[in-house]
C-alpha cells in the first residue's frame, strides 16, 4: 500500500514507543504526527495512558496548566516529545533562536517546558520533519535544554531517538552521540550525511526504514484518525483525506 511521509513517520515513532515499556505519554499541541503515533500504539492494544495537551474537550488536567509539569516531576510521564529550531549532535535543542541571545537573527517562540521535561520525563523522542544542515547543526546557537547533564544534576531520562523526514537516529547518552538507525526510502547513508550538520555513528548493517504495514496504515486511517479529527482537523484532512462531521 502506498503511504504518505507523515504516515511513515508516525509508524517509526510508534515502533520507538513500543520498543520500551511505556505507561503514560504526554503529547504537545503542535505535534499531530507524534499524537498519531501514540494513538496507533493504543489502537494496537498497548495499555497506554495518553495525555494530550491543549485538547479542548476532555483536557486531562484539573489542577491547571502546571499539572503536566508536576506529573512529570513525580516521574509519571514515561515519554515526551520535543522538537527544536536547531538540534545538534549532542542532542541539545534550541527553541530560543539564532544569532545573539535571545535570538536576534531569527527568534523562535521560546523554550516552553523543554528545560524541565527533557530531564524529568522517562525518555524523550525528538521529532523534526525538516532534516537539513540548517536544523541539524553541529552546535546549537543556544541551548534550551541539553542532551546530557553533568553528575549531581537530577535527570530521569534522555533522548531515545531523533526522527526526521529522512531517517531515524538513536541517541546514546553515555557517549553523547547519535547513531543512524535507518534511512527512509529514497535516502542513503551518504544523503543523510550530506544533509546533517553534525557527525553521527553508522553501525554496520544499517538499512532502509521498514515501511508501514497494511495493518498499521489501516489503523492510522481508521481508528487513529477518528480520535484525532477534533484536535487536528487540518492534519486529518491533509494526510488522511478525512473531514470531521460538521
Amino acid at each position, binding site marked *: 500500500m502506498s503511504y504518505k511521509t507523515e504516515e511513515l513517520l508516525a509508524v517509526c515513532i510508534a515502533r520507538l514507543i513500543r520498543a520500551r515499556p511505556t505507561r503514560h505519554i504526554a503529547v504537545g*499541541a*503542535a505535534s499531530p504526527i507524534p499524537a498519531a503515533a501514540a494513538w496507533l500504539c493504543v489502537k494496537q492494544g498497548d495499555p497506554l495512558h495518553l495525555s494530550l495537551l*491543549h485538547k*479542548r*474537550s476532555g*483536557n486531562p*488536567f*484539573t*489542577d*491547571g*496548566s*502546571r499539572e503536566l*509539569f508536576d506529573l512529570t*516531576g513525580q516521574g509519571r510521564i514515561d515519554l515526551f516529545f520535543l522538537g527544536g529550531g536547531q538540534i545538534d549532535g549532542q542532542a541539545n535543542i534550541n*527553541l*530560543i533562536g539564532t544569532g545573539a*541571545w*535571545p*535570538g*536576534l537573527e531569527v*527568534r*523562535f*517562540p*521560546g*523554550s*516552553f*517546558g*523543554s*528545560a*524541565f*521535561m*527533557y*530531564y*524529568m520525563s522517562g525518555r524523550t523522542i525528538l521529532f523534526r520533519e525538516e532534516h537539513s544542515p540548517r536544523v541539524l547543526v553541529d552546535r546549537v546557537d*543556544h*541551548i*534550551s*535544554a*541539553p542532551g546530557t*547533564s*553533568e553528575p*549531581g*544534576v*537530577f535527570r530521569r531520562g534522555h533522548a531515545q531517538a531523533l526522527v526526521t523526514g529522512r531517517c531515524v537516529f538513536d541517541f546514546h547518552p553515555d557517549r553523547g552521540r547519535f547513531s543512524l538507525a535507518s534511512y527512509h526510502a529514497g535516502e542513503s547513508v551518504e544523503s543523510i550525511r550530506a544533509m546533517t550538520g553534525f557527525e553521527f555513528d553508522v553501525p554496520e548493517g544499517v538499512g532502509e526504514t521498514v515501511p508501514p504495514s497494511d495493518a498499521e496504515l489501516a489503523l492510522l486511517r481508521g481508528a487513529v484518525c477518528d480520535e484525532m479529527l477534533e484536535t487536528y482537523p*487540518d492534519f486529518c484532512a491533509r494526510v488522511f483525506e478525512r473531514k470531521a462531521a460538521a
Partner: protein
Amino acid sequence: MTPMSLAAMAASIPDGAMVALPPDNSIPSVALAKALIRRRARGLRLVGVPISGFATDILIGAGCVAEVNTSAVTLGEAGFAPRFSAALKAGTLVVRDATCPAMHTMLQAAEKGVPFMPLRGLIGSDILANRPDWMVIESPFGTGEKITLLPALHPDVAVFHAVMADSAGNVWVGRRRECATIAHASQRSLVTVERVVEGNFLEDERLCPGAINATYISGIAIAERGAQPSALLDEYGFDTDYVMAYARAAKTEAGFAEWCAEHVFDNQAVAAE
C-alpha cells in the same frame, strides 16, 4: 461587587505595571488587552502563565510593553508572534526567557508567601545562564544534588477572563486553575466576565471547585466574548481564522497599525459602553 467599565479597569492599571496574562488556551482577557491599547498603556511588564499568546503580541505591537517574562510567545497554529519578533529585533522589548514550570514555580512561591522555591531541570540550559535572578545551590540535605532556586514573582495585577461572577464577587474559571494561582500571587486581580449571576458559588458544591474567592478580586467588568479570539471552556472555541488573519496583517508594522485601527479602536465605542 459592582462591575466597572472596561475603560475604567484599563485606566486602573498604571504604566509600568507587572501584569500576569495567561495564554490563548487559558482564558486571557483579550477585551482588557484591547482596552489597555486604547488607553495607550506604556512600559507594561508582562508575565506569561506560563507562555504568552495573542493578547501579548497585540500589546507589544501597540507599544504598550517594555518587558516579557515568559517561556514562549506564540500564536499556536498561526505561527510565530509577529510583533514580538519585530520588537525583539528592533531592540524595543526585553524578553526574559524562562521554561513553563519555572513560571509556575515562581508564581507558586508568591502564592505560598515564601521567598523562593526549587525546581529541577534547568541546569545546563542557556535559559539559566541568562537569568541572574535564579540561583543554583547544592542541596543542603547532603545528597550532592545541584538544584536551582527561583525567586517568588509577585505581579502587580493578574488579568484574565472568567465565565461568570456571582453576587459576592467570586469568579468562575472552571479547570483553568492557573488563573487562581495568579490571582493568589498578584497584588490585584482584574477579571472580565461573560455575565454576572445571582447567588454565591462558594455555597454550591458543584461550582465551588472552579471558583476563585472574591477576596482576591479587585475588579470585575462585563465583556461578552471577552476572551475572543481565544477559547472560553465550553462557551466558545478558538477563532483560528481571526488569528490567522492577524498573523498575516501583523507581519509589518503598517499592517499591524491597520489591523489595530480596525479591530481595537473601531470597537471602542461599543466595548466601553
